[in-house]
Each structure stands twice: as structure tokens, then as C-alpha cells.
């Protein structure tokens, strides 16, 4: 059985993970969606057609997506220090998690935005909508189910990334699992951590799917 001390540690790690993922998620959402909108609207034939911007931004996004997280984690240490003033702890993990998850989410959101029927966009143009109306009243609402679905996937990926960030001493559940499970062969703690991670992922996935279902079936 787990001691009271272990339970406290698990609870603290759980809160750290939520904190880490929560803060990152907020940043990923608010940076990823504008990024996706820029990627979609600057493409050929779209409302802000700008092939150069599109290509440069697309390449940057691809570059980050192609780099394995574990390498980002190390490579971003100078940036992390610059922004947070430290390279360990919850806040330090937010930087690499955000940098890795934002391009991922932006691409998924981009696909949903691109799938908004061109007919609907055209109808909006024909009724005299300006570009900002098209973005906020047509593109975003129409793509919302897909964006939410993509954000759910991103959240799950971020939880797994947060566990990995434990390897560089970021705190949270991953850190706990590595310190006790891997380094001290305490299988109970490791199993407890895995159980908690499974529960978090299941809840997020269920909530996401449910929301998408409601959006699509109204």
C-alpha cells in the first residue's frame, strides 16, 4: 500500500501536471488558432492569399513538428531560462510543451478550417461580409467541432509530453514516476501514476468527444 507521504506526493504531482498542462493548453489554444487561421487564409485562392507568408510559416511549423519532443526539451533550455528564469519546475516545462504542441494543434485546426465548405464562404462574401466577419462568423464556428476534436488529441499528447518533461526535472506525475518507479524500483508508485494518467486521458477524451457530438448533432 501507499503511505500517506506517498499519497501526498502523488496529489502534489497530480496538481503540478494539471497546472503544467492547463497553462500550456491555454497558450496552445490562443496561439494555435490564429496560426491555423493564418495558414488557411493565406493559402492560394483564400481571402488573404499570400503564398510567401504561407510557405514560410508552413515550413516553420513543419520544422517544429519534425523535431522529437525529447530533443526540443533539451534544445529549448536556453529559451526556457530566458523566459522563466529557471530550467526546472512546472513553469520550465510549459515552454517546451507549448512550443511542441502549438504547431501540432495549428495543423489539426488548419485541416478543420480548410474543410469549411467554400460555398458557405462564398455565400458570406456574396452577402457583403468583410474578411473579419468571414473569419469570426463563418470559418471559426463552422470548423469548431473539428477544432475541438483536434484540441482533445492535442491535450492528450500534451499530458504525455508533460510526463516526459519530468525527465528534466519539471515535476508532476512523470517526474514522480521516474524518481520512484524507475530509479528506486517502486512499482506501486509507478502503477499509481499510470492509473492516474489513464484516468485523466480518459476523462479528457470523453469530454472532448461528447462536446463534439453535441456540436454536430444540434
Amino acid at each position, binding site marked *: 500500500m501507499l503511505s500517506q507521504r506517498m499519497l501526498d506526493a502523488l496529489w502534489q504531482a497530480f496538481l503540478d501536471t494539471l497546472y503544467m498542462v492547463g497553462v500550456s493548453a491555454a497558450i496552445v489554444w490562443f496561439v494555435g488558432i490564429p496560426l491555423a487561421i493564418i495558414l488557411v487564409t493565406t493559402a492560394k485562392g483564400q481571402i488573404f492569399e499570400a503564398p510567401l507568408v504561407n510557405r514560410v510559416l508552413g515550413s516553420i511549423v513543419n520544422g517544429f513538428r519534425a523535431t522529437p519532443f525529447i530533443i526540443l526539451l533539451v534544445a529549448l533550455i536556453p529559451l526556457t531560462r530566458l523566459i522563466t528564469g529557471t530550467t526546472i519546475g512546472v513553469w520550465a516545462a510549459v515552454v517546451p510543451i507549448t512550443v511542441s504542441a502549438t504547431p501540432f494543434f495549428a495543423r489539426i485546426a488548419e485541416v478543420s478550417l480548410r474543410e469549411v*465548405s467554400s*460555398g*458557405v464562404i*462564398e*455565400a*458570406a*462574401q*456574396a*452577402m*457583403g*461580409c*468583410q474578411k473579419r*466577419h468571414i473569419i469570426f*462568423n*463563418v470559418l471559426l*464556428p*463552422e470548423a*469548431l*467541432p473539428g477544432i475541438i476534436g483536434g484540441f482533445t488529441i492535442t491535450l492528450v499528447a500534451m499530458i504525455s509530453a508533460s510526463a516526459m518533461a519530468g525527465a528534466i526535472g519539471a515535476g508532476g506525475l512523470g517526474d514522480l514516476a521516474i524518481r520512484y518507479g524507475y530509479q528506486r524500483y517502486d512499482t506501486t508508485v509507478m502503477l499509481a501514476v499510470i492509473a492516474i494518467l489513464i484516468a485523466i486521458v480518459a476523462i479528457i477524451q470523453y469530454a472532448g468527444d461528447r462536446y463534439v457530438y453535441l*456540436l454536430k448533432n*444540434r
Partner: protein
Amino acid sequence: MNIAVAPYRKAAPSGAADSQKTSPTNPLHLRLEGVGKTYVSGQRRVEALKDINLDIYQGEIFGIIGRSGAGKSSLIRTLNRLEDVTTGKVLINDVDIQSLDTNGLVKLRRRIGMIFQHFNLLSSATVFENLALPLKAAGIRDKQRIRQRAQELLRLVGLEGKEDVYPSRLSGGQKQRVGIARALMLDPEILLCDEATSALDPETTQSILSLIKEINKTLKLTVVLITHEMSVISQICDRVAVLEDGALAELGPVWRVFGRPEHEATQALLAPLKPKISDDIAQAISATPADNTSRAIVKFFFDGTAATYLPLGILSQRLGGDLRLLQSGIGRLQGHPQGELLVSLPYQQHELAQRLETINDLVSTVEVLGYAVPANA
């Protein structure tokens, strides 16, 4: 089956001179001057429109037909600048719309409603939110006013009480009604319809057409509509343009274009509507009369230019009285009776041609198809 080569065929002069009389008297609304549109995608260039000259008058319902790929959508889309013309000009109320800046274009589009084959409603928004969008985009914030206007239009299109329903819960016909209501929210002066009834069943098509006709009358809208259904044109359009391969092939009042199609493309489009001679008669026809009791099988064609009615008594009298009606397909288009009559009359050598000459003023075309024995015709 072998139908005789017509030994006698006479056509009355076509109604070209008469187009002056029927051209609309309303003020000019839209004018296309030498409009051309070329799409360039990579190496490929498609000349979708070639030197189109066209006037559309206030309050008319103007139809555009043509084969698939003829350029109909391209043409209608130049009217609200969803496509920019490559050459030529589009004038609306005498203003060259190419000269408008972004702001001017947005204002222009608010005066032009458009409805689509696939309705193009926002699936993420309720009927009310769909209707509210054009007003919101026009900067109208007054919730009360928006709701009132939406209710007004839902009443007009027969969808009262559907404000809070999502489009996925509506039938195709209902969706198109929402589309129409949305197009009318800003009280436009022009309504563009690109195959607005193509996705609907015949009954729903009828109801949507009546609705378009009704709003054309009550709101005094100019309507430009594209369709693949010739019946749509004959039912509600005043004039029709036929596009073929990007060029204007034919243009005129519907009754004239449909009654006497001159261009091959128009004839091909209308071919399915042409009555076929029924098989038993076609089989009974032979190229030469068997003997003196044979009857001549004659087709009279009325293109609608001759009169507002067909004087059957006089027709029969001039032809000697013994006229048998075999088949008829006379309809009425914009007050002009038109179609074909298939009749038989006694064949008497030398006299047939002379007799048929006497009805030139009543009939547009006379064609002797052949001869049959009296028992058959």
C-alpha cells in the same frame, strides 16, 4: 422505320422582326459590355466567357441556360464580382462595378442577394443566426430590429416559428427558403439564383419557383437565374439567354426562343421537350400514297408569332373540311400558343400543295411527313 423525306415543307418568316415589340420597356438595370472571363491555373487557360453583351431590365426574371460548362455560373458570378471580369464591363445602374473599391464592393453586394444550389447555410448557426449574419455584417447591432426583420422574412417564405432550428433539421426545400430569406434580409434590388432548384424534387421546385415569382412581383426585384430545367424557364422567366461554349448563342423572350430555337445549342437543350410522333403513326406512314383514297400526314408547327389563338375552324375549312387530328401538343407561353399539331387530310394529287398554301398565315411551318391508308390515319 422509314419516314418519308418531306415532299413539301414551307416555313413562315421567323419572328425576328417582332423582337422589337416584345423587348422590355422597364428601365435598364444590369448591362454587360463585351464581358470576357479567362481562368488561368498554371499552364491551363480556360476561356469561360467570350464577349458577352447583355442588358437586363428592372423587375424582369432573366433566365440563363446552356450545357454544363457553358459558363453560366461564371456569368452570374461576375454580376456581384465573386469573379472579376478579364475583359469588358459590368454596369449596375450605370455604375461600372469594376471601379468599386473594397468598401464599395461590400456595399454593392448588400444590394444583391444570391441563392445557391446547395443552399450554403451555416450549419453551426440556427435559422435566426443565419438570417442575422447579413445584417450583422452590415453593422446593424439592434437585436430587436434584426429579430423583427428575420420574422418578417420567415413569414414571407412560409417558415414562421423556425427561428431556433438548426439547418440540419430542415428539408431541402425549407433550407432553400431560409436561403431566400437570407438573401432578402438586406432588401436587395437584385436576386441571383445559381441552380436554386436543382437539388429539389419537382413539387418542392414548384413551390420555390412560385415563391421567387411572388417576391419578384411584390418586392419588384430583378431576378437572374440559372437552371438546367427548361420547365423552370418556361414557367417563370420573361427572357432567356442561351450560353454555348462561353458565348451568347441566343437571347430573347422565352416564348420566342423556345418556340423557334435558332441556335443548335438551344435546339439540343429543348430536344427532350419536343413531342415524339407516336410509334403507331410513324409505322403507318409511307413515302408515297398507295392510291387516291390515301391521306396525307401533315405536321403543323406554331411558333407563337402568328396569333394569340389558333382558328381551328378556319384552318379546317381552308383545307377542305375533312381534317383528322392525330396528335397534338399545343401549349401556351407568355400568351403565345405554340407547339405542334399532327393531322391527316385527304390526299388529292396536285391539290395538296395548293391547299396547304392557303393556311400560311395561320401556321408557322407545314411539313408533309408522308401518307397513310384511311384506316390508319
